[in-house]
């Protein structure tokens, strides 16, 4: 179980997160939606301390960290419980696809190379890239790179995978392949927190939607409730555009 309690983050005087509370159960797929600048990505990056929250408490499994007094050891412990998929993939450019996926297993989890290799190849098979194992990231398309990023995260077998706008920098044509892969993993019961602008995707894969604006959670609930019958005025306004788009496309 993952618990975020009263997470606050400020940059100087500018307050980005104003006390966020979220509980994620094992197997949950949480989608965080909201307009640009609402703090979605910052929240996600606070969970693995790529941004240091100023206040709050993060609990992942048996690791509980008081953000204000987080030590290096705490941060490392949180990072070893999580994995992240980035908007810009962030693969290690000087390593092959297979090495990218193995890196965390051999270096961080100290797994013997042979075992790490097996697991990594299994993960690459899951994202459909076994044939690219010996390629370098620069030889792959954006969609393929992102799938490697997903395999890298999956290999670690983390408590939760954090997706930071995984399709935002992809060609429209390549979005589909990445979404399909994420959907497949979601069905396997991997716990995920997904920040995305793909509304339809969020609705289809998540079992809980969090709508944020200005560093606050405005509304949250089951996808069908949020999409079809939002309670808050701001949420209605936000999803109106989306539902309209759908009616146009028919």
């Amino acid at each position: 179980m993952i618990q975020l309690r009263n997470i606050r983050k400020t940059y100087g005087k500018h307050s980005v997160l104003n006390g966020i509370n979220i509980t994620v159960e094992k197997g949950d797929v949480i989608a965080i939606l909201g307009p640009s600048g609402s703090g979605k990505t910052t929240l996600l990056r606070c969970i693995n301390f790529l941004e240091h929250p100023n206040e709050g408490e993060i609990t992942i499994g048996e690791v509980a960290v008081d953000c204000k007094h987080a030590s290096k050891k705490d941060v490392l412990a949180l990072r070893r419980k999580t994995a992240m998929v980035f908007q810009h993939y962030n693969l290690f450019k000087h390593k092959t696809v297979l090495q990218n996926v193995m890196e965390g297993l051999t270096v961080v989890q100290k797994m013997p190379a042979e075992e790490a290799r097996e697991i990594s190849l299994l993960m690459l098979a899951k994202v459909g890239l076994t044939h690219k194992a010996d390629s370098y990231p620069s030889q792959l398309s954006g969609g393929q790179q992102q799938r490697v990023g997903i395999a890298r995260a999956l290999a670690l077998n983390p408590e939760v995978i954090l997706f930071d706008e995984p399709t935002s920098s992809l060609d429209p044509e390549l979005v589909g392949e990445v979404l399909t892969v994420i959907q497949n993993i979601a069905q396997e019961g991997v716990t995920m927190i997904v920040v995305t602008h793909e509304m339809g995707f969020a609705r289809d894969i998540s079992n809980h939607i969090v709508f944020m604006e200005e560093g606050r959670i405005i509304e949250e609930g089951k996808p069908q409730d949020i999409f079809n019958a939002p309670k808050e005025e701001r949420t209605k306004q936000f999803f109106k555009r989306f539902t309209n788009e759908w009616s146009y496309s028919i």
Partner: protein
Amino acid sequence: MQLDISFIMTAFLEILQALPLTLAITFVPLVIGFGIGIGIALIRLYEVRYIHRVAGFYVSFLRGTPLILHIYIVYLGIPMIFDRLSAHFGWGMNSSSIPLIIFIFIAFSLNAGAYMSEIIRSGILAVNKGEIEAAYSIGMTTRQAMWRIVLPQALLISLPNLCNMFIGLLHGSSLAFSISLLEINGKASIVASTNWKFVESYIAAAIIYWGLTLIAEQITGLLEKRLRTFAKGGVA
């Protein structure tokens, strides 16, 4: 005065005897300076408490003064310190027993370290920040991320500049003659004045330096090509 073409060849062969010394004066400081450079670059990047100021001063001072001065200060200063320490601790040794080349190694290494720290620092800064975040996200420590992800890429980025550094040191090694070490330039001066053939001797020396530089460029080119296999492809 007529140019004695054939003497250039004679001088060339004679001066070539000084090649090992020149190479030693180039390579030893290159290696030591590289170590110093990485250390200083990391200290300055991570702003290690107190010592990063010392490191900053070191780089600023060494880059702000000419190499020939470093040679003089080391050559004249170290014996003073050495003799005083020797007297104090009763080592029973005199600074005159220190081989000349040691002073050159020290002066050149300090000089090269200052320049290389800046080369390596800029290389480290050029590595994609996202990859460092990715390294952290899979649970690597700062040290693991630095050694496994950042430095290999940073050094590759720095390779052309490090090659320049090598060339600079190679040519700088001619200053070792100022404390009467007979490297290529020194040897050329001797050959020149004993035979009264100055231009010929110096042309011969120039050819040797140039040849070494060409070889260095070739090796760097090959190295870059080999190590850069991962950058092939071209799909963004």
